[in-house]
């Protein structure tokens, strides 16, 4: 047998919330990868496993209720199954809602693709008194049926056995029989034995005379007749194989919903959960991020430098590796703990079933702003850091809602901006708190304006129809949570990480080329900064040193201060310190321990620490206060607030919404920033 014949391609299909992700996590383990379906922002999960000499590839299709392509998700599933049919369909059914799920099964059976039926959440079904006769079900449909519990992983092996058996014995499901007249008409359309029921139905719907004939026979439109036949199939099959013992027990979901969906109590609980989410994700990961940053810059970088000196490398090469490469890697890695924690907490909220409930609870407020109820979480997270906030939009189903929120998030002012604001506000203003607060408000206003512009132009559409299922509360296993977090983290490092790394290298080069530059003024960045002055002059920035500092600040806004310090004070970045490998290693170890201690301590501390700002750059303060005035400082702060001078944000935007959207947004934010700063500066000059 040739090796390529030993591959089986399996597509997971099922309604939303049936536990496909959980099953896939058990089936494919660490081989699981996420990506997007071509050209769309809908998520695609893939993985593989080896079993009995076969490589079984799993492709997860979006959760859908029907194969009639109405939404983007359904269109993706429909196109995949009809255009590049897999070897097999793994139809996952939420057993407690089996009758509803069997409607999709009917549509899938029409495709004539071999199938294995998975009755998932069998434990929940048993609690509800739903007892399925699997043997009878196998006999009626002519396929293998497996009972599983996606939470514990019971039945996973049986799925693999069933897949291989179905493949080897070439088991194909029996054809569904619909009502007599419909079957007669379908048969008369058949031209070859190979045609599937789905193809025959498609043909029938394209023939006018057949449509009239059905209307005459049934007194209803053909579409409706076919749908009712599928429902009848699902209903009949369900009654045939399910024995129901009515069990009355107070179910935990009803109980929890009484509080969590209560208009007042529920809202309070939501903000409490949001606070904890905020606190844990930002405060907890901050000490680790700081430590990681220090570890790379104060330990790995000088250690590498030492090694390169030994090898006799020229100075520029040496600095390229120890500053640019290590710096770039470090910059990517500093986001990692933050992203991991956000993914972990969001996945937890999603798998427990709380996330869709927020949409229901918050819809009252959010729909007035033309936004989906779910968009509140990413928007609030934006105040902690825009990067994970954009990442958090992945819980939104509709592409329109998702893009809308992604375009609003960057205007939520983050702590990186606060660092810059507090420096300038304290240097130039008598009442810095008021200035900073106004900037936060301005950010929100710009976000709302952006949403209005987008809704009137490229993201038209209405929120009118709102249909959503609220799954029962379920407790996810740690195995599932960590599995999923690892999958997303890998994807972040691979896709956003490479971009962040590449751009950070380019920026370093612009500051250090041509070779042998001593003063920042002579570097490429300095020249660009000077050339940019005509653009910045109308908003009150007349000093090339300020415009040049914006170039490295594209990495992250707070860098504007350190690069201003470098340029203004011409301090030079080279630190000639004694470096001892063993001493430093010891220091780093203690640093990690104290970071861990600090992380856990911040969990107990009720106040958010993310907003604490430490006093730095006192030398810079006196120099800057001479080269700028109040008004140009205010204009500069507004510019920094609105312009998305943040490589991390643009990179995740690139990943979540595409290249065009990310670059378009970057330009938009620059124009908005310039315009706002210009208005404030001009109005201020007149007063």
């Amino acid at each position: 047998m040739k090796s390529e014949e030993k591959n089986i391609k399996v597509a997971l299909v099922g309604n939303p919330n049936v536990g496909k992700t959980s099953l896939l996590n058990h089936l494919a383990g660490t081989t699981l990868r996420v990506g997007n379906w071509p050209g769309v922002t809908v998520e695609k999960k893939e993985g593989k496993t080896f079993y009995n000499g076969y490589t079984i590839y799993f492709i997860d299709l979006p959760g859908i209720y029907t194969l009639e392509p109405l939404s983007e998700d359904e269109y993706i599933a429909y196109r995949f199954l009809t255009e590049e049919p897999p070897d097999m369909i793994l139809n996952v059914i939420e057993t407690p809602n089996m009758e509803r799920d069997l409607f999709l099964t009917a549509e899938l059976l029409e495709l004539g693709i071999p199938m294995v039926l998975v009755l998932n959440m069998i434990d929940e079904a048993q609690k509800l008194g739903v007892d399925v006769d699997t043997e009878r079900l196998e006999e009626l449909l002519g396929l293998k049926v497996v009972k599983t519990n996606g939470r514990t992983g019971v039945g996973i092996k049986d799925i693999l056995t069933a897949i291989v058996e179905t493949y080897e014995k070439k088991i194909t499901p029996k054809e569904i029989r619909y009502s007599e007249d419909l079957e007669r008409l379908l048969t008369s359309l058949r031209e070859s034995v190979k045609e599937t029921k789905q193809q025959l139905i498609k043909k029938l719907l394209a023939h006018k005379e057949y449509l009239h004939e059905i209307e005459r026979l049934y007194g209803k439109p053909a579409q409706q007749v076919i749908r009712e036949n599928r429902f009848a199939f699902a209903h009949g099959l369900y009654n045939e194989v399910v024995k129901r013992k009515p069990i009355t027990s107070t179910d935990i979901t009803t109980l929890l919903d009484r509080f969590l969906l209560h208009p007042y109590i529920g809202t309070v609980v939501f903000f409490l959960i949001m606070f904890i989410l905020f606190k844990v994700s930002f405060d907890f990961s901050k000490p680790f991020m700081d430590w990681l940053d220090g570890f790379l810059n104060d330990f790995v970088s000088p250690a590498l430098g030492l090694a390169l000196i030994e090898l006799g490398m020229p100075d520029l090469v040496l600095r390229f590796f120890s500053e640019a490469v290590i710096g770039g890697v470090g910059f990517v890695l500093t986001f990692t703990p933050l992203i991991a924690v956000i993914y972990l907490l969001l996945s937890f909220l999603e798998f427990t079933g709380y996330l869709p409930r927020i949409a229901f609870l918050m819809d009252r407020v959010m729909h007035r702003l033309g936004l989906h109820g779910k968009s509140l979480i990413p928007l609030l997270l934006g105040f902690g850091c825009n990067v994970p906030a954009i990442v958090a939009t992945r819980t939104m189903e509709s592409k329109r809602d998702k893009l809308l929120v992604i375009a609003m998030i960057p205007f939520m002012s983050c702590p990186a901006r606060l660092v810059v604001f507090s420096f300038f506000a304290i240097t130039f203003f008598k009442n810095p708190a008021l200035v900073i607060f106004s900037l936060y408000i301005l950010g929100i206003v710009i976000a709302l304006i952006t949403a209005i512009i987008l809704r009137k132009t490229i993201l038209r559409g209405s929120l009118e129809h709102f249909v959503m299922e609220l799954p029962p509360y379920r407790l996810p296993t740690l195995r599932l949570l960590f599995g999923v977090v690892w999958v997303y983290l890998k994807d972040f490092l691979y896709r956003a990480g490479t971009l962040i790394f590449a751009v950070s290298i380019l920026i370093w080069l612009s500051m250090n080329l041509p070779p042998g530059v001593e003063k920042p003024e002579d570097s490429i960045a300095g020249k660009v900064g000077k050339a940019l002055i005509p653009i910045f002059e109308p908003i009150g920035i007349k000093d090339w040193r300020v415009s040049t500092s914006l170039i490295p600040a594209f990495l992250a806004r707070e860098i504007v201060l350190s690069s201003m310090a470098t340029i203004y004070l011409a301090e030079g970045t080279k630190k000639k310190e004694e470096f001892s490998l063993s001493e430093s290693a010891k220091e780093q170890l203690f640093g990690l321990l104290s970071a861990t201690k600090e992380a856990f301590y911040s969990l107990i501390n009720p106040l958010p620490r993310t907003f604490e700002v430490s006093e730095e750059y006192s030398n810079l303060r006196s120099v800057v206060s001479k080269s700028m005035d109040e008004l140009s400082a205010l204009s500069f702060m507004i510019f920094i607030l609105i312009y998305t001078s943040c490589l991390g944000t643009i990179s995740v935007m690139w990943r979540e919404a595409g290249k065009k959207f990310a670059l378009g947004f970057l330009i938009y934010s620059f124009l908005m920033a310039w315009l706002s700063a210009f208005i404030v500066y001009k109005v201020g000059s007149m007063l």
Partner: protein
Amino acid sequence: MNLEDVKVGAKVMIRDLKGKEEVIRRVEAMGLRRGRSVEVLQKLGRTILLKLNNSRIVISKDIARNIYVE
């Protein structure tokens, strides 16, 4: 009577669904079909929370208005 007018806590039987074809298809596939009995669990703003067999479904009131019940 339509589903929007049903009081919280009441159980009703669906008689007919009207309105846009694509909306009907969607809610039918989710289980809201003729002959099914649903319980109104909660009304909040412009949405209604329903219980149908073992699933909970949220629909907006403009859809509920087109679902006739008894």
